[in-house]
């Protein structure tokens, strides 16, 4: 799996968020996106997830040199971000079962429960998400992101609101993702920046380092 960005830019009306981003990320690589507040880190992540179209440029997710059609991205992209909210009126199990169904995956209760145990939610699987603490909700977001065994994992502020165990869990997930595919982190936290093989600083005119 490869991720290619060619001259990608995002504008809201006449306001430029970022522009001229070109890069290529290969299997096993991690890109860290940094920049001050409002520089477009989260916007770039949502554009990479396919949730927003870029105003300019092209994004390609390629498998063996062939670009995947846009409608297939949902099967290969995982996303964790402060903007992501799962259904508070459903339990963690019900949330994951629902998203597995809409992803067209076969029902697999054992795998779902393993995933919830993996993110530290064993014993609370049947609680409604509205009763979860902020940290528990973030853990559930990781279970959601890993549901489709993503080839491209997009993490926006990956450890925000997590405790020490949660941060260790994110480190493990990042290490695993390097074996499974690609990783993009949007962060300014030095502890998270160290994971990157490449760094894109949106605060300095989209310079790649």
């Amino acid at each position, binding site marked *: 799996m490869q991720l290619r960005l060619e001259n990608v830019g995002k504008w809201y009306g006449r306001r430029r968020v970022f522009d001229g981003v070109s*890069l290529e*990320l290969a299997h096993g690589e991690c890109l860290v996106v940094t920049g001050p507040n409002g520089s477009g880190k989260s916007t770039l992540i949502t554009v990479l997830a396919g949730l927003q179209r870029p105003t300019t440029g092209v994004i390609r997710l390629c498998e063996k040199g062939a670009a995947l059609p846009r409608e297939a991205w*949902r099967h290969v992209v995982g996303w964790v971000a402060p903007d992501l*909210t*799962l259904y*508070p009126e459903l339990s963690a199990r019900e949330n994951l079962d629902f998203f597995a169904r809409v992803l067209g995956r076969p029902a697999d209760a054992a795998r779902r429960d393993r995933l919830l145990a993996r993110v530290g939610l064993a014993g609370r699987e049947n609680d409604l998400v509205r009763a979860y603490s902020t940290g528990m909700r973030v853990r559930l977001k990781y279970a959601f992101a890993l549901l489709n065994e993503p080839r491209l994992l997009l993490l926006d502020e990956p450890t925000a609101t997590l405790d020490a165990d949660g941060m260790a869990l994110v480190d493990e997930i990042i290490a695993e993702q390097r074996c499974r595919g690609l990783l993009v982190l949007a962060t300014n936290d030095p502890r998270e920046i160290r994971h990157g093989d490449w760094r894109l600083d949106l605060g300095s005119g989209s310079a790649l380092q």
Partner: protein
Amino acid sequence: MSSTPPATTQPPPAKPLPAPPAPSSRMLSGLGEAWAVFRKDLLSELRTRYALNALLVFALTTLLLVAMTVVTQGQGLTRLPGGEVGQTAARATLLAGLLWIILFFSGMSGLARAFVKEEEARTAPALRLAAQPLAVFFGKMLFNVALLVAMALLIVPLFVLFLKPDVKDGALLLAETVLGSASLACVTTILGAIVARAESRASLFAALAFPIVLPVLVIVVNGTAAAFAGGPPSEEARNQLVGLVSYVVMLVTLSAWLFEQVWRD
């Protein structure tokens, strides 16, 4: 990319992606996904009563208010030309109009929120990421249809009980109730999707709904009046129902085609 070397050792190669499903299997999987969206919305609604309460409170209050205040008997309404007492065409039309005013405004108070709720609760991005747009559209439409038809089937008997229309063609009334409310739910679904992402939702909804919903309402009010009045107009109403179904099928097809653009950007 840049000249900086990777910080880690070379990872093992990835497993190949599974082959894309055949078109027939894609269609079946799309139906399953739409059903999953419907089930999720139903479960969510049963727990929060978000739309249900709005619909029921509005419908029952309006029904009682109409029953207590609107005069539906007397000169020109229950006195036939020969001096006999019965239901005139004017009364049949008045009652049909009142019934659909109750059903329409109750439906609008809850149905338009199917997508707005996803945007306001910020659950829309997860749904947008994981589900194919058509599954979302048809799942939500199915939920809206189920909700409005169920509400109509509850309200119409109460309406008959309180306002005592002389129902001459019960089968036609049932058909008008089910098809009319299902049609309103279908057209409301796409309008709800459009306005969910707009800033001035309420005014946009009203402006868009008027030309699209009006033909549906005209047909069902005429049809319901015919069901109350009986006689030859009832035949004409059956033909109009066919027209109504055709109009809604056309609208849903067009909406499904446009929905991806609305949903994605």
